[in-house]
């Protein structure tokens, strides 16, 4: 399923890259992205070198290259959408090409990072580098319940589809909104239970 593939970027593996500490990988990815962003616009040699080294890293991770490529291509429309704006200005073609290259290289960095590092490990890094605890708690809860809520939403949609026979744009808007609204009601009820469970385990703000 394309959707499952999109939602789970992490690929299991035991390569050298997988075993590196998450903090080091995050730092390396951020440093690489900073370098790419700060390079002058016409540094084509540097872009080629970075691109080649990213390909080498991808090969070392022994990740599923096809899946990495699919992720990259799925994100490319957003990059193109903004890059196309540059074509509106006179003489914007070199700017367009260099921004497209920069963005694609940065995307490749992040895709490699997320393919080899679990999100929970990245959260632990955020915790260690003193990102405000409220934000990390929020992120952790979000990550924990994201898939629970997505599954719940799918169940509700399936139930809805099996009971309604009206097709059409306006009814499909209403149905989606109905699902979202009920999902929020259930989410807030679940949040109450989660709070009680957290308190039972000694949680404090």
């Amino acid at each position: 399923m394309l959707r499952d593939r999109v939602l789970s970027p992490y690929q299991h593996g035991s390569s050298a890259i997988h075993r590196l500490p998450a903090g080091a990988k995050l730092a390396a990815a951020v440093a690489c992205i900073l370098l790419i962003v700060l390079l002058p616009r016409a540094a084509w040699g540097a872009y080629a070198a970075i691109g080649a080294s990213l390909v080498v890293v991808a090969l070392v991770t022994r990740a599923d290259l096809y899946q990495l490529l699919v992720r990259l291509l799925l994100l490319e429309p957003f990059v193109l959408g903004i890059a196309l704006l540059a074509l509106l200005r006179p003489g914007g073609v070199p700017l367009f090409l260099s921004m497209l290259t920069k963005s694609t290289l940065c995307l490749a960095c992040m895709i490699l990072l997320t393919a080899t590092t679990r999100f929970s490990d990245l959260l632990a890094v955020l915790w260690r580098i003193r990102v405000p605890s409220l934000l990390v708690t929020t992120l952790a809860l979000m990550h924990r319940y994201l898939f629970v809520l997505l599954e719940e939403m799918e169940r509700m949609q399936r139930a809805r589809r099996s009971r309604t026979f009206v097709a059409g744009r306006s009814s499909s808007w209403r149905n989606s909104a109905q699902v979202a609204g009920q999902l929020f009601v259930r989410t807030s009820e679940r949040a109450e239970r989660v709070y009680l469970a957290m308190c039972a385990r000694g949680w404090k703000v």
Partner: protein
Amino acid sequence: MHVPDGFLDARTLISAAGLAAVGLGLALREVRRHLPARRVPLIGLAAAFIFAAQMLNFPVAAGTSGHLIGAALASVLLGPAAAIVAMTAVLLLQALMFADGGITALGANVLNLAVIAPLVAYAVYSAVGRLAGESLQGTLLATGFAAWCSTMAAALACAAQLAASGVVAWGTVLAAMGGVHMVIGLGEAVITMLIVAVVARARPELIAPAATAAAPPRHRAAVAYGAMLSIGLMILLAPFASSLPDGLEHVAERFGFAESAIAAQPALLPDYTVVPLAEASPWLATVAAGAIGALVAFAVAWFVARALAAPGRTTARH
């Protein structure tokens, strides 16, 4: 509207990240001090809910479909400070897990979608709500217009950042982003109203009516005004910043682009009576176009709110 890496220049990235950090820091402080502990887990779960709701498809036409942005929805359901934290979490997860939205551009994205959008949404929500009264219709009207305004504010802030980075001329990007998001904002408004109507009927206690939405305490107001001021500054300064080396004549020339680009999209504002105005004063024409868009959005929000609040109409479908 997520800006990827590689588009914004260092100056814009740093100033946007600074503003985002201030907004987020104040929101975190506000949540820690004033939100009951019971509500804290809801922020995380609501962030997951917003992410899930963004995946629902709303078919538009010819196989295309739109989806929710969610800043206004979060603001109405959670209040402004919690909405800022929740939207920041959504953007962080999207950037760190799905590479959607850049790492260096994170500050800019958080500023646009997680600070400016919820704050504008809440400001409009409570202002319109106070005028429209405590009824469900008033709350829905306030919700819809707040959703449109927050979408526009985020789009304009994003446009200002792109222009300030020299990616594209201010006039062009204003016309492109502003024009497109006037329409996207209508979709956002209708979706948000539909969802809020469902929640308000199922569990009215989850939504404080817009009329009684707390008049913002002083520091919350400070956040709002700070963000407003910075949007204003960016919008005002961006065209000059992006063309300072070329002198002010260039600004005029770029506004020439604005005109042609707006005029090239007649479908968006069919009876676009401000075209003659554009020759006289491009700034005024832009303001007039914005005002017409806002009026249309307000009218749409009013009609949808009336339809949704009509007694027995939605309840009959349960």
